[in-house]
């Protein structure tokens, strides 16, 4: 446990030193406040529209930003140490490979969680203080849900980045694959799903289709933050399939947890079997 924390501690102090933590927090706070105040600008007015609309907009932007940040934070976790020449040395210390990877996860995971809590937390407090007549209780619940699911989504992509990082032997390849993963889940997946829907002309099993959304953590994340308001009208595109998912919020939370637990377990397994 001690050595896991030693590794995590270095990652945390690295992200303080290179200003990553501060930069991500700032981006999140700016994003949240910008959307809160100008989210309704399209309909011709400036000002806080409503909590559900704000959260829905935040979640839609979040799926672009959070996976990208998580992948950038974590893609070089192992391959970076290897290229830097420190991996071999680290492994000669009383430190197992699993401990090394878990320490990295703790460090990167805490960095992302801290930035999310600080960035969106500040925005939430600002909304509560500055907007008149906002229902504090529902705002707090929505913000907590949003922050919690954002952290889980980020952890999922950190774990996916590790799967790459323990497999490849060159940093540029890891970076390329990380971008490919981002591209796939954020842009391609929904298009493919839509294409399947249209091409199958309703032949596809209606019970099975909504479950396909569970194959994409970013879809689970959006569903989670929109469905919670009981307002399925906000669901657009393929997400409207989610209204037919028979699992409810708890199932979606479990889905997000699995989406970081399974890739992390996979990365651990791959790393343990890797030749040094």
């Amino acid at each position, binding site marked *: 446990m001690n*050595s896991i924390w*030693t590794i995590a501690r270095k990652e945390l102090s690295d992200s303080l030193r290179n200003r990553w933590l501060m930069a991500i927090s700032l981006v999140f706070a700016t994003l949240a406040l910008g959307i809160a105040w100008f989210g309704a600008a399209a309909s011709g007015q400036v000002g806080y529209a409503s909590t559900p609309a704000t959260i829905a907009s935040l979640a839609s932007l979040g799926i672009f930003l959070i996976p990208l940040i998580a992948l950038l934070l974590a893609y070089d976790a192992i391959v970076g140490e290897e290229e830097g020449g420190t991996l071999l*040395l*680290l492994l*000669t210390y009383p430190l197992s490979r699993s401990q090394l990877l878990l320490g990295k996860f703790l460090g990167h995971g805490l960095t992302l969680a801290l930035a999310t809590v600080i960035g969106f937390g500040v925005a939430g407090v600002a909304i509560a203080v500055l907007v008149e007549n906002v229902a504090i209780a529902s705002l707090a619940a929505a913000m907590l849900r949003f922050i919690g699911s954002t952290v889980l989504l980020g952890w999922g992509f950190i774990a996916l980045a590790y799967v790459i990082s323990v497999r490849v032997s060159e940093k540029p390849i890891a970076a390329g694959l990380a971008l490919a993963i981002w591209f796939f889940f954020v842009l391609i997946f929904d298009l493919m799903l839509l294409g399947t829907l249209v091409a199958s002309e309703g032949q596809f099993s209606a019970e099975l289709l909504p479950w396909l959304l569970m194959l994409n953590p970013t879809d689970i994340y959006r569903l989670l933050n929109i469905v919670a308001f009981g307002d399925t009208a906000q669901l657009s595109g393929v997400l409207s399939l989610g209204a037919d998912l028979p699992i409810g919020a708890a199932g979606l939370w479990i889905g997000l947890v699995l989406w970081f637990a399974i890739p992390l377990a996979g990365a651990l397994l791959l790393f343990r079997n890797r030749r040094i």
Partner: protein
Amino acid sequence: MSCFDLDNVSYRYDKNPVLRGIDLTLEPGEILGLFGHNGAGKTTCIKLILGLMTPNQGSVSVLGGHAGDPQVTQHIGYLPENVMFYPQLTGREILNHFARLKGASLQQVPKLLEQVGLGDEMDARTKTYSKGMRQRLGLAQALLGKPKLLMLDEPTVGLDPVATADLYRLLRKLREGGTGIVLCSHVLPGVEPYIDRAAILTDGALKAAGDLAALRRQANMPVTLSLDPANSISALEDVIDRASSSSGLIIKSDSGRLRVDVQPRDKMALLHALMASGEVADVSIHQPSLEDIYVHFIGSGGLAHRGGSQ
């Protein structure tokens, strides 16, 4: 308890044998030189002892335990070849990090940095370090927590002569304290005075192992005598011809001196004859050096081997 004990160890990499039936031990307070051409299996040996890999055959015991066990690796210091560190951290920060990983006290960090001569640079980021400074930081890292087994791969690369002498002095001190030390180096004349035993690897097999005297006996290489004639070279040559009945000496004239290669077992007889004849003004005796022994065991195909990679 041996520092390590390799017993009939073989290791294959993708079915290519890297090590074949290696038997090698190191006792506390002993300095072992591990030599071989590139790709001979030195690094693989070290990785097996560090527990980074497990052998396909044979057993590796280290400090009385299994290679790679945390209780064992805690007492091993290792300096890899071409050691690298986190460029954005200072020497002190890096050593603190590794000390925490090793469960060693942080108080020794400034002392170790002073000891390797980085006292003034310990708070500079390591990206500003020269090769020699990185090497010294690597040494300090290997010395964390008073290791019982110290393995150094090319420790003198990038060190100036003074720092090299300091290093060997330090190693002697550690050896007196009971640390077992493995030195891998290509600078054979440099390490020769400091090692207790040498092990020579070629193509994954242990060609020879023992102290220098034993290796010399095993190699049975001629000893070279340099002789200054008291009167004339021809008189001296006569003495040698008469003394050497069957040993097949090689005699070369060399600007007024004679160089005579003599088999070790004939050496004393020849010396007695020379002393008795009164034809010798001065004599010096050259034992085969570690380098000569190394070349002998590696064989004349050595250059081809040295082109290998690893």
